[in-house]
């Protein structure tokens, strides 16, 4: 009885505003007072459970002075040492782990060994902390100014200005709880993208639909990016489009490189978590299915339906994440996703072998004759092959977000790697 009455109460007045939330209320615990169910889910992103290709595994470690974490995710470098060859000379070859829940984002960034080998700029913070309030403070209430200022700082200094992983205020307007985009990188990136499609001055917070926002809030971070120029401005390379070919063209045009490959001297690129970009090429995007539909599906709590703020692999939550749209049994849906992933993983391995072969060849030829004129051609092939492969490798759905496109990209990567090998040998034989 009491239960029913409670339910009725809740229903009529879904949320009790216990605390006054303002545009400077950063601490999610405070927001949690008004929205305890969402907050409960949010806190559960500490869970670590592995799926066949996703989730993450909790690996115990002995905390040290420089790295006080007692639990990390499994090392991807140990799982596949070919990655070290691909990233030779870049910080990723030192430490690269499976990503885990949002709760860890700030710590994992602060303590990754990558920080110990390279001095990073404050730009990094954009996607690993609740930066909305710090940006606003730094910029004298001007978000973009604050962003620019933090980009300029060394990481260690910027680190002192933030205190939470992504928090409620990063996705929500405190007054209405409506979604909003708070990240300059996305605001500018999507504006450039829309401009390339003929839509000028796109203002995401004013012009996006609610359903689009259910993707865009994730697209704030789950995207390919680079640091532009000496100001280390965070830029999403979308000015020519979201397809890999457009992104490649963009980087080629500006002759951007992330680093010089240690063993081959190729001007290499590192792709990073292009979930938004790949999703965009898939059938779910085309059908209007947003990130939140699968990663934050509605769930019933008492008499209410709320969004599951335990953001995680949908394969750990198939009944809510998939079954409202797909009436297949859970096991079957899992098998479908895994069939797609296995197929991707298989061609990814073919592509990885091809790339390693090219790198070995390049190394060998360079050692023999570093002025060989085929080197430049082969290095360009490596640059391309590597970026294409990494685009699928670094994307975290193992192809699920756009199965056919993922294989297409890998197919092209294989072509680049092997053509690089052929080019090297052609010059050697003169044929």
């Amino acid at each position, binding site marked *: 009885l009491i239960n029913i009455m409670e339910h*009725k109460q809740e*229903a*009529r007045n*879904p*949320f009790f505003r216990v605390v006054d939330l303002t545009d400077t209320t950063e601490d999610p615990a405070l927001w949690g007072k008004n929205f305890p169910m969402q907050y409960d889910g949010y806190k559960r992103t500490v869970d670590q459970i592995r799926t066949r290709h996703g989730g993450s595994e909790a690996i115990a470690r002995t905390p040290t002075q420089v790295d006080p974490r007692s639990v990390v995710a499994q090392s991807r470098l140990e799982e596949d040492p070919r990655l070290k060859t691909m990233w030779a000379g870049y910080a990723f070859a030192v430490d690269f782990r499976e990503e885990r829940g949002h709760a860890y984002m700030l710590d994992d960034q602060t303590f990754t060994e990558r920080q110990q080998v390279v001095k990073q700029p404050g730009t990094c913070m954009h996607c690993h902390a609740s930066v909305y309030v710090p940006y606003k403070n730094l910029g004298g209430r001007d978000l973009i100014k604050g962003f620019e200022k933090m980009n300029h700082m060394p990481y260690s200094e910027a680190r002192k200005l933030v205190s939470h992983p992504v928090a409620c205020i990063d996705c929500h307007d405190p007054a*209405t*709880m*409506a979604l909003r985009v708070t990240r300059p990188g996305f605001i500018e990136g999507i504006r450039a993208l829309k401009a390339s499609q003929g839509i000028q001055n796109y203002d995401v917070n004013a012009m996006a*639909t*609610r*359903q689009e926002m259910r993707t865009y809030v994730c697209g704030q971070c789950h995207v390919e990016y680079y640091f532009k120029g000496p100001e280390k401005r965070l830029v999403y390379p979308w000015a020519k489009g979201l397809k890999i070919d457009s992104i490649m063209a963009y980087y080629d045009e500006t002759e951007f490189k992330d680093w010089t490959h240690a063993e081959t001297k190729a001007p290499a690129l590192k792709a990073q978590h292009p979930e938004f970009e790949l999703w965009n090429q898939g059938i779910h995007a085309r059908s*209007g299915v947003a990130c939140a*539909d699968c990663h934050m599906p*509605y769930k*019933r709590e008492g*008499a*209410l*339906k*709320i*969004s599951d703020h335990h953001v995680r692999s949908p394969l750990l939550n198939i009944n809510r994440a998939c079954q*409202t*749209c797909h*009436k297949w049994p859970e096991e079957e849906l899992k098998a479908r996703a895994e069939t797609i992933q296995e197929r991707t993983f298989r061609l990814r391995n073919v592509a990885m072998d091809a790339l390693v072969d090219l790198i070995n060849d390049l190394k060998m030829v360079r050692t023999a004759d570093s002025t060989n004129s085929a080197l430049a051609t082969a290095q360009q092939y490596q640059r391309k092959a590597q970026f294409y492969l990494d685009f699928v490798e670094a994307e975290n759905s193992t192809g699920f977000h756009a199965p056919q496109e993922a294989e297409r990209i890998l197919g092209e990567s294989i072509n680049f790697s092997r053509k690089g090998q052929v080019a090297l040998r052609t010059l050697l034989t003169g044929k």
Partner: protein
Amino acid sequence: MKIQSTVTVFLSIVVGLAIGVGSYTFIYAKGGSYLTNDPAACANCHIMNEQYDGWLKSSHHSVAVCNDCHTPPGFVPKYLTKAENGFWHSFAFTSGDFHEPIQIKERNREVAEKACRKCHQEIVDAIEAPHGEGEQISCLQCHREVGHP
């Protein structure tokens, strides 16, 4: 003047025919079924059989009839919708001139969207409240099959 009356005559004939043919269809094809709430009545048109069969097996079979989802609340709007749909469907059925498979039209889709909220307002308060009178999410994007696949 002359033109006008010709048009009037012409129109009367057309309207008369329409009403005549319409009512014939209406009666012969048990179009009166539009006026009841009995789902079996909708299935008087074999063309509604698929939805009827689907509805029989649906989660809403014991809780909602066709009209709960396909007519707006309130006596007048309800019968207006019925009249409009009844006329056009009878007409379409008789002439055989309609898109197959049958597609719900925007107006009726909105009626259905409202119908979901008619029964489920409370449970969706939480996901709708933040958006006030603003843009609402479409229930059908995830639940289009609850009434019938």
